[in-house]
């Protein structure tokens, strides 16, 4: 989805605050929220990592930006426990003693039509074009590189295709590619000739470009 999570290249953000000797968790509840999600994925098999990422992407944008990282983790995990029928929102709100905001529902038709690519179609040095897709559901192709052409630096192993895995789609594995884009091809107003961005992209997201 073209959501708030897809932040790469967005303007208007200010200085990055940096904390010396930052602890892993600032407060105990953050550790618990992190662990509840990991146990929800790895032990309870309530949800997978792609459903989890997408549950956070579905948070209303204002809540997403206001929440710290671990509040987003909590909100995403709680949304999936509610959606899978393990707990109810009412039960959570009663226990919390106040409102428990969750993510918005999944889109009814979440996946772009992308033909499965079980065999690697590209190799190091190939020029590839990123399809200009805008699925309503989960995808891992950032907006800033859609419709752009880059060069394959490396072919990575085949991994589960997240757009399908996030929405109960048929399991499919595809190779991913480290595709290098010149910054000046991504943003006309920013970047320099010797700056580039390498994006890790699944085979389905790409099409070949004749040299």
């Amino acid at each position, binding site marked *: 989805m073209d959501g708030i*999570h*897809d932040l*790469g*290249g967005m303007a*208007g953000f*200010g*200085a*990055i*605050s*940096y*904390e010396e000797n930052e602890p*892993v*968790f600032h407060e105990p*509840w953050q*550790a*618990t*929220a*992190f*662990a*509840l999600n*990991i*146990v929800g994925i*790895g032990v309870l098999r309530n949800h997978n990592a792609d459903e989890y*990422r997408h549950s956070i*992407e579905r948070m209303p944008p204002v809540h997403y930006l206001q929440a*710290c*990282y*671990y509040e987003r983790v*909590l909100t995403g995990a*709680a949304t999936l*426990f509610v959606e899978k029928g*393990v*707990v109810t929102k009412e*039960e*959570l*709100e009663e*226990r*919390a*003693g*106040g*409102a*428990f905001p969750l993510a918005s529902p999944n889109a009814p038709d979440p996946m772009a039509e992308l033909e499965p690519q079980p065999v690697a179609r590209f190799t190091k040095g190939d020029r590839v074009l990123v399809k200009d897709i805008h699925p309503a559901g989960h995808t891992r*192709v950032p907006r*800033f590189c859609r419709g752009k052409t880059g060069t394959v630096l490396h072919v*990575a192993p085949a*991994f589960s295709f997240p757009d399908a895995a996030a929405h109960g789609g048929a399991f499919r594995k595809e190779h*991913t590619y*480290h595709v290098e884009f010149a*910054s000046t091809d*991504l*943003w006309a107003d*920013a*970047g320099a000739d010797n*700056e*580039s*961005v*390498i*994006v*890790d*992209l699944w085979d389905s997201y790409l099409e070949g470009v004749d040299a």
Partner: protein
Amino acid sequence: MSTPTNIASPKARTEALQSALADKGLIPEGALDAVIHTATEDWDPENGARVVARAWTDPDFKKRLLADATSACAELGYEGIQGEYIVALEDEPERHNVIVCTQCSCTAWPVLGLPPDWYKSPEYRARVAREPRKVLKEMGLDLARDIAIRVWETSAETRYMVIPCRPEGTDGWSEEQLAALVTREALIGIALANPA
């Protein structure tokens, strides 16, 4: 969109989810503590620093690390969740590497640890791909104009670590001494290895 005014604190919400799951018997004894222990004790940027120090001192290890960082890190015992496919990025005097995950906040947990807040912030995620030289300068790393920058977006399953250049004046140093020069910030690429 209705905006509730009585939103429970994140702490109260976390306790609500935890107790709801626990009362249904869904959380195995010790499961949460085990995750928290791993996250705070095992996943540590000092692990990545040891990998870098080994690469600086052992050319065969460095060759293996650049060819297959997952196995090379596993040789030192660093593997597991979010370390299933690690790629090491070697800095060169004329080309610098920096890592981001613009869409969430992925990192190689076993070698870098859970990422710090600045890495997870909307500011870093929005800005570093588009204006890396400016962001690095703001964070204390002023790279000369002729040094190329590669920004690595962690958009799929590859988890990256940066191998910074070995500082001058460290000939003959032990692995332990060298590892102490490598911070989490250097492993992500917003800093260099500390000079000797």
